[in-house]
């Protein structure tokens, strides 16, 4: 292979470094207007009167729009259709949008927002998981008992499993919010066209979601709504469903006023009103034999969904499937609940419901290892999934399980043998320790993904040998466009330099589902191969005709034409030219449907995902035992995501994800007062800076997947997910202080030390 496993330079590297990349706020359209949003001031209330008169009189205001002005349906379509674009009669969280103010410039629009007077009756609200479970206020959401979703797993006989266990124990865990902190805030521009169609440009992960959202809001058919993806400055799940809302805010005034409208969020507004990682409360019980075999698992966990269901059902389901960890166990009983509160709706975030349960599960394993007098490595060695094992949901794994390899590589990478010393043997003010976590992760949307589990690609070869590729999954910084160029070049036999990946445009490619779930490389990669194979057929035919050699004997590699390893005098361009002269069709549509999965809602068993990626994280920390300050010294991440397409970029993904996971574990904390976040900025919501970054060692464990493009699986989310428990387990190993809550701030560690 010539371009698979090659670290070619990112195709967008130069434009990102020299600033020429155009983000949505860099775009301007003639006579464009600017939108700002008037929002609910308290967590729950009934609108009695909305006085727009003062705002409407302000010079420069072009219109103020409320629920009744929406030309189509007042809904944000995600899983359920329970969320309105603009609150009508009642609002259900502080910051919920009530009116769109449009003006000649954003400052005037902002001024207009400040002049709107809302008369409302405050209604009783729920702000915590506990109050929601206890129904301190009944019926705050569209579903009974304040529960949006409940999923379960019933495997074997957990009671019997605990009875036959030599040790069993139960612990409670809590995890907090996490903000995506993408560099580019949410933004869209809606441009109405003369023929009563609309084009929407913006920063997003899922153009086809936005297309559906704008279609619902405007009442236009899907064919008349065109979405064009602009360079996106980070997303991490935060731009999965939310951009449909932003596009709605721009589209409503755009179609009514017949003018382009720009809606770009400021940072505080973005943090306060858009989706977050779900906070969780988890009760986890495990039982083991003396020898360390995992015999029973019982988990009950709750996610704080916020006021509307958005993506919560799917996030919860993924949490359920991964809650028991990457271990073989015959007796599993899990209940997963997503409860409603009058807070900002939570949604997708890198890891999608799993970092919460991984934190609980991996802390549980660490506690068990100590109780069993086994090393955390040995306990995992006994229980981890290997080829031939069955996952917690009874998925028999017959290939591509690199967990055992990753376990030992990650342990060696941190020098576990020499550094794992019990906390009781440590003295002094600054104490060092090591910790570990293991995890598995289903690639793609899984059995609950329904019709979304497909992707398309369109390839056109031009007469000069240059190639255009249109795809349906987005580049958001993760490097997928470079991967797609490599896959195209490999499949066609040209150079990646000749391949242009076009900006995503919903008019060019069929609905390819969302860009989420670490699915792009497998799904779009396979669609590209499917498209390329159709063109390759003609290229080989053409090369055969030109050279007189049989098709089977011809290879196309990096623009060269070879037979039996010898380069012929004709090139890729000659072949293309010949194909054009012969009027062969060098344009094709590719399509890929995900391999099959299965699921039974009653038992919670089935082949939940078509394939899994596997990770082991190890961490070394130094803890100041007096102040509780934690310095992370080393992080190792050994990841099996099949064949890496571009190893250098994969390492970059691992490094970034690991640091984001470190922030989640020990630093990032959203504070709220009366349901309103009070630190909505980067000077108060603290994420790691370069000064906080430890030595990160990415290790690629390549266990190929037969149905992946060139044996690749998915990588995007895995690096983040298990870092927090590797660090908190290392904190325990350093100090003997057990952390059951993240972020593990120094304040918490000192409090825990006293207990």
């Amino acid at each position, binding site marked *: 292979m010539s371009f698979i496993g090659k670290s070619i330079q990112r195709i967008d590297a130069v434009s990102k470094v020299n600033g020429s990349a155009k983000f949505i706020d860099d775009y301007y359209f003639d006579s464009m207007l600017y939108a700002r949003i008037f929002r609910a001031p308290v967590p729950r209330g009934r609108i009695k009167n909305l006085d727009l008169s003062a705002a409407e009189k302000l010079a420069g205001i072009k219109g103020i729009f409320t629920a009744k002005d929406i030309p189509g349906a007042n809904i944000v379509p995600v899983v359920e259709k329970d969320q309105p674009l603009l609150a009508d009669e009642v609002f259900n969280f502080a910051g919920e949008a009530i009116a769109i103010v449009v003006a000649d410039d954003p400052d005037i629009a902002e001024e207009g927002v400040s002049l709107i007077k809302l008369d409302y009756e405050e209604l009783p609200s729920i702000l915590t998981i506990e109050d929601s479970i206890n129904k301190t206020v009944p019926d705050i959401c569209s579903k009974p008992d304040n529960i949006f979703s409940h999923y379960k797993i019933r495997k074997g006989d957990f009671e019997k499993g605990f009875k036959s266990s030599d040790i069993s124990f139960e612990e409670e865990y809590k995890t907090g919010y996490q903000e995506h902190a993408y560099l580019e805030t949410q933004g869209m521009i809606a441009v109405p066209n003369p023929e009563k169609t609309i084009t929407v440009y913006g920063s997003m992960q899922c153009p086809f979601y936005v297309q559906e959202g704008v279609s619902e809001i405007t009442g236009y058919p899907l064919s008349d709504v065109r979405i064009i993806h602009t360079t996106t400055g980070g997303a991490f799940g935060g731009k999965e469903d939310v951009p449909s809302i932003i596009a709605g805010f721009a589209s409503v005034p755009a179609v009514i006023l017949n003018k382009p409208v720009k809606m770009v969020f400021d940072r505080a507004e973005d943090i306060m009103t858009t989706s977050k990682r779900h906070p969780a409360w988890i009760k986890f019980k495990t039982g083991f034999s003396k020898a360390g075999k995992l015999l029973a698992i019982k988990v009950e966990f709750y996610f704080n969904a916020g006021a509307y269901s958005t993506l919560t059902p799917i996030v919860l389901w993924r949490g359920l499937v991964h809650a028991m960890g990457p271990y073989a166990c015959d007796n599993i009983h899990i209940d997963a609940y997503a409860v409603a509160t009058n807070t900002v709706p939570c949604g997708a975030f890198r890891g999608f419901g799993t970092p919460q349960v991984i934190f609980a599960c991996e802390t549980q394993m660490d506690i068990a290892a100590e109780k069993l007098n086994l090393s955390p490595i040995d306990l995992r060695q006994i229980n981890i999934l290997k080829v031939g094992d069955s996952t917690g949901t009874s998925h028999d794994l017959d290939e591509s399980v690199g967990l055992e390899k990753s376990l030992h590589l990650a342990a060696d990478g941190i020098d576990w043998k020499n550094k794992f010393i019990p906390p009781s043997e440590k003295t002094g003010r600054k104490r060092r320790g090591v910790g570990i976590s293991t995890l598995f992760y289903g690639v793609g949307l899984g059995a609950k993904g329904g019709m979304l589990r497909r992707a398309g690609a369109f390839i056109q070869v031009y007469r000069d040998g240059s190639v255009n590729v249109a795809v349906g999954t987005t580049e958001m910084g993760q490097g997928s466009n470079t991967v797609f160029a490599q896959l195209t070049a490999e499949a066609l036999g040209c150079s990646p330099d000749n391949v242009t990946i076009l900006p995503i445009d919903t008019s060019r490619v069929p609905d390819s589902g969302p860009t989420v779930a670490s699915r792009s490389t497998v799904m779009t990669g396979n669609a590209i191969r499917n498209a390329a194979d159709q063109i390759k057929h003609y290229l080989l035919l053409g090369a055969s005709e030109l050279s007189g050699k049989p098709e089977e004997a011809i290879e196309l590699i990096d623009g060269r034409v070879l037979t039996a390893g010898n380069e012929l005098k004709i090139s890729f361009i000659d072949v293309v030219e010949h194909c054009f002269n012969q009027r062969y069709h060098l344009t094709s549509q590719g399509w890929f449907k995900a391999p099959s999965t299965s699921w039974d809602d009653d038992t919670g068993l089935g082949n939940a995902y078509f394939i899994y990626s596997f990770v082991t994280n190890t961490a070394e920390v130094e803890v100041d035992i007096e102040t509780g300050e934690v310095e992370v010294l080393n992080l190792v991440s050994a990841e099996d995501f099949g064949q890496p397409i571009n190893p250098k970029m994969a390492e970059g993904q691992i490094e970034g994800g690991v640091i984001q996971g470190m922030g989640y574990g020990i630093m990032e904390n959203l504070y709220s007062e009366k349901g309103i976040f009070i*630190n909505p900025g980067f000077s*108060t919501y*603290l994420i790691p800076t370069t*000064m906080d970054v430890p030595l990160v060692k990415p290790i690629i464990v390549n266990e190929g997947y037969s149905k992946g493009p060139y044996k690749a699986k998915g990588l995007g989310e895995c690096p983040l997910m298990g870092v927090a428990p590797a660090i908190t387990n290392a904190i325990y190993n350093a100090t003997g202080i057990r952390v059951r809550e993240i972020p593990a701030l120094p*304040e918490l560690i000192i409090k825990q030390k006293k207990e």
Partner: protein
Amino acid sequence: MKKFKYIRPNNLKDACSILKRENDIKILAGGTDLLVQIKDRMKTPENLLDITYLSELRVIRNNSNYLEIGALSTHQDIIDSDLVSNNAGILQQACIQIGSPQIRNRGTIGGNIINASPAADTLPPLFTLESELILISESGERTVKIKDFFQGPGRSIIEPNEILKSIRFKKHSNWLGHFKKLASRKALAISKLSVAGLFLVNNGTIDQARIAFGAVGPTILIGKDTVALILNKKISSISEKEISDAVIKDISPISDLRSTQEYRKAITTILVQRILQNLMKA
């Protein structure tokens, strides 16, 4: 952002007369706080007086017994100054821990003072140096002791028509200074708590001591009880319990975004202990 009128004076005299003339005016020194506040509509002045170009306010000079630092000296200017290094090293220790390279290059000591944050890192060292602030207005100059300057978070006795011209303090070349702060990350983080201590030590005995605490009260707090405890004592004879009792009397922390009252109490004591331990080593 609300629109404002931008005014750039030619010299300090002009600046003073503009301040007297215009109402609702804010002074732009480094802008690292003010511009953020204006952008977020937390401050909405009608007028902005840009004094950043008044080089007469960006000097650090010897003035017989005193060191005088112009209010527009940046944190980086102070870090780079040998005069400060030789006579007030404790101030450099604080400046080097402020913000990021960008903020240290842009933010000024005058702005850090006038902003009047109880968590400002230059303030505890300036308290231990017993600094004086020279304020100027059209009607002349006045000198105020730094301990009498602050009234609460964001509040001080400066009049709307006054500009902070410079800060001066006596040279402390033989003194041992230590500044310690705790923050949530290694850069770009506001202090959870900070302690500055300046000492004259003779043979393991503390002859003179000044201690100031940041972020554990509505303004910078002076460590009266702590100083009384340690003065004229052998450092090795002071117990942890005694230090803790004295420190807790000196400070009045609250729980907020950055930390908890309980943690601040416990850790402030630990930082004082660490400073005393450092003195023993010296």
